[in-house]
Each structure stands twice: as C-alpha cells, then as structure tokens.
C-alpha cells in the first residue's frame, strides 16, 4: 500500500511511472488491477489443477531440467542421481545411471551379413531386454526383421510379421532394420527443439527429457527406426536392466520418441551391443569405422556391401553385406 501511495503522489506531480509514458494510476485503477490479478490467480490455479492428478507426468526437477548439452558436470551428477531416484520410486529397482561420453578417434559402424542372418529375431528381444523396452510391447522393439524373397531387394515386398515353425524358410532371406545412425540424419534436422542430434562418434542421440513428442523425426526417418511411447513402460523390478545410460536405456517417460542408439552405455565402454552379443549366426559385426585394421573397414574393402535406401542420401553407418 505504501508503494501505491508513492505512485499516487508521483502521479499527482505528473511524473510518469515509466519513462516515455504518460497517464495516471488511481485508486480505482489499482483495485481493478487487483481484481484482475485475483481472477487470473484463480484461473491459473484452475489451469494447474489437472497437473496434480497427473501421476506419470514430469517432476518439477524434470520440468526445469536443462538440455543435455548445456548441463555442467555438477548438474549432470545431480540429474543422474535424480534419475536413479526416479527408477527406485517408480520401479523399485536399484539402478546405476551413467553419462557415457564418445571415445576420441572412434566412429561406430555396424555391418550385417545378409548371407548369414536366419531371421530368428534373437537380436530383437536381446535389444528389448537390454534397453528396458517392455517385452509385452513387441511393437516398441527397435529392431524389425524383414523377410524377403531371394533375388529381390524390394522393401515393399518384405514382411515384418513373418511367423514360422522354423527359419530360415526356403527361398527367403532376412534383413533386420534398426536406426542406421546416418551421417546426414533427416530426423535431427526436423526436430523443432533440438532434442535429437548426432554425437561425435556417429550415434544419433535423443534427450528424452527434452523431447516434446511431436514425432516429426518419425516422419522424417526413411528407415522407420523411431518408436513413440504411447504409454509409460511398466516392468517388474527384476526385469529392469540396472546398467543405464542417460542418453540410452534409462526408462523413457510417456510421450517421447526412442530408437536404437548402438547400445551407447555398452559400446562407449568398449563392449559389443546386445544384439551382436546374442546373434546365433554371428551375422552382426560392430566396430570402429576409423580403425584401418578393424573388421568394418575389412568388410567395406573386401565384401559386396549394400546400403539401404542409398538414394535417400542419408549416408548411414549401417552396412549390409553378402559373402559366399
């Protein structure tokens, strides 16, 4: 009230409150403003009310969290701790969440032997277990296996939902497809909030806390590699993989997009991705594209290599190859 009196006196002396403005503020005006404020307050309270009943919504800390690239090391430590707490409270599991950085001099690449793959889908389920994708939601699997006619590479003819007593079936070959970690990723260009970006080691990362769920990236991806979380994933505590990475396999909230990230939490520690570990035919070969003596460069130099949808000019880091 004291402030207000001052204003009135100031107004009486014809001194504008803000430079470049004229006019006076009277008691009536103030009351009007107060009433307006009260109305706005009530409206705001009403508008915020649904947030209270939102059980799986973001916590305040998550709501205010910075973009991944703007987190300082101390902020990151705090954030990782909060994620661990969230896993503990939501799923009753003790997890370790790390923020694994790219290894200098390493650019990841994947090579898959189409002459060997037998379509057993072991990689699909190993991936789901590793990356905390609920096993009862196979539509969320990052890897899809296409069954195709031999002597054809027409993707339109491929069948994702093949089911057989035994594979491989006569006259068919199998082509698993996941994120190709493109050098020129169309998905990151369309993201309106920069929630997805290519990392220095070639992995296209997603900040799940920054994603707004607009799904532009899903429309942009020529490989249909991205999945949208329609529901919050549910697990029993013993089904959670507690070895988590912030940009990789920590449980995603509802309403964000996720995809294959080359098992970032494993591969940045030198380990194989889960799909390569489990492949019964040894078709999956993972390594450093920049290593001149590595397996990836050997394949590129010596095998017949096929790039999926090369005409899309995405320059993938995922190579299919054939051998004898």
């Amino acid at each position, binding site marked *: 009230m004291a402030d207000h009196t001052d204003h009135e006196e100031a107004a009486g002396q014809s001194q504008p409150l803000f430079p470049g403005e004229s006019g006076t503020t009277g008691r009536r005006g103030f009351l009007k403003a107060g009433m307006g404020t009260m109305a706005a307050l009530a409206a705001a309270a009403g508008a915020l009310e649904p*947030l209270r009943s939102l059980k799986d919504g973001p916590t305040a800390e998550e709501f205010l969290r910075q973009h991944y690239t703007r987190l300082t090391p101390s902020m990151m430590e705090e954030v990782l701790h*909060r994620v*661990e*707490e969230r896993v503990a409270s939501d799923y009753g599991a*003790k997890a370790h969440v790390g923020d694994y950085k790219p290894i200098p001099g390493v650019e990841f690449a994947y090579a898959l032997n189409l002459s060997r793959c037998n379509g057993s889908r072991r990689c699909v389920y190993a991936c789901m277990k590793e990356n905390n994708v609920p096993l009862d939601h196979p*539509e969320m699997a990052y890897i899809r296996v296409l069954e195709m006619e031999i002597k054809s590479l027409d993707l339109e003819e491929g069948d994702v939902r093949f089911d057989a007593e035994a594979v491989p079936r006569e006259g068919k070959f199998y082509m698993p497809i996941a994120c190709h970690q493109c050098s020129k990723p169309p998905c990151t260009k369309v993201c309106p909030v920069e929630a997805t970006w290519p990392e220095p080691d070639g992995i296209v990362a997603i900040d799940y806390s920054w994603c707004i769920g607009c799904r532009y990236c899903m429309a942009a991806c020529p490989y249909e590699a991205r999945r949208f979380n329609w529901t919050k994933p549910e697990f029993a*505590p013993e089904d959670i993989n507690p070895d988590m990475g912030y940009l990789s396999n920590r449980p995603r909230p509802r309403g964000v997009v996720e995809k294959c990230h080359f098992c970032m939490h494993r591969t940045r520690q030198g380990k194989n991705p889960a799909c390569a570990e489990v492949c019964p035919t040894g078709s999956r070969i993972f390594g450093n594209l920049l290593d001149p003596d590595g397996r990836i460069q050997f394949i590129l130099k010596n095998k017949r290599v096929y790039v999926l949808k090369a005409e899309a000019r995405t320059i993938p880091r995922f190579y299919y190859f054939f051998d004898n």
Partner: protein
Amino acid sequence: MNQDRIQSAAILAIAVVLFVSCLESCSPLPSIAASTALYERDTSAGLSDIAPVRGPVRPLRLHRDGDETECTLCHDGFAGDKTEEALKNEHADLKFNHGLNLLCLNCHHPKNSMAYVYHDGSEIPSDQPTRLCAKCHGPHYREWMIGLHGRVNKYWDPSQGDQTKLDCIQCHNPHHPRFESMAPMPPPTLTRFEKVTKEGESDGGSH
C-alpha cells in the same frame, strides 16, 4: 498503460509464487538410501542367453541312451570296420551330410580314436577341432581368425577387454555342418492397439 503494466507484473509474480509452491508440493521423491527393499539385479553375466547353438566344446565320446562311452572301448588302436553295416549299427543315431567328405578317417585319426588327423597323419588333439576344419575350409578359417565368421563376444575394442570366439563345432555339427534351422521369436504387433491372441492371430487394429 501503467495500470496494465502493474497488472501484468502482479500476475507474473503470483504465477511464479503459485508455480514454485506447486513444485514444492509435487516434487518430493524418496531418496535412494531411504527407500527400502530395492531390487538389485546382477547383470554381470549379461541379460540374454549368449550360449552357442550347440553348447561348449565336448571331448570325443560316443553318446547313446544318455550314457557316454569312450571311443577307445571299441576303437582301441584300430580303425574299426569301415563297412557301411557296422557304421549303421554302431553309430545309427548320427546323421551324415558333409558334402563330399564321406570317410570317417578323413577327420578321425586311424590309430588314436581320441584324436583327429592332420594331412600328414599327425594327431590333432580333440580339444582343437578348429585346426581340423581348417584343413579344408581355408577361406572360412581365415575369416574366423579376423572375426568375420562366427560370433565374437564381449568387447568390440580388443584394447579394452577380451574378445571370445566360438569354435566351429559350437555352431556346426561336424557330421552335417549346415547351420540348422531354429524357431523364431514372436513377431511384432504393428500398433499398440493390436494385441496378439494365444493362437498368434491378431484381433482389432486396422492398417
């Protein structure tokens, strides 16, 4: 105008107060130390079954009716009767489909039935079957050596940890080496609305 300024400033201030108070009320999370009975999963062995198709390398034995018999029981110092009849009787449970390689003694040592035979007639110990296969399968052996044929487990980066390779016979049956077919895991549903029924047929959903 002033009035509008004050009004909006007041609204802003109250909104901030409201927001902060909302944060206060909905933010508390139990700390990890405080919550009890958290499940601690051991993932040191990995989450998925990475056992090879045929299991570990086993020593040479005759397996019959759940029993194991040493080969020397019959083949003690002699090559055995090479007639088809004897083969049918004694090794009836073995399937043979190894291309042109039709003779036992191409691989098995004629004198020591617990070993394999090399080109020059020397012995290959039974725990080194890869050397035997390399006699004929040179290209595959060379690819196996550099990690292109067969699965390499554990570390992609050999400088950071061990790589493990599987032996040939952990995936291929030496008597019919073609990789055997296996049952695939269940297919994906295409939408979240589509549930897979017990018969494996989908209901609902349209595309």
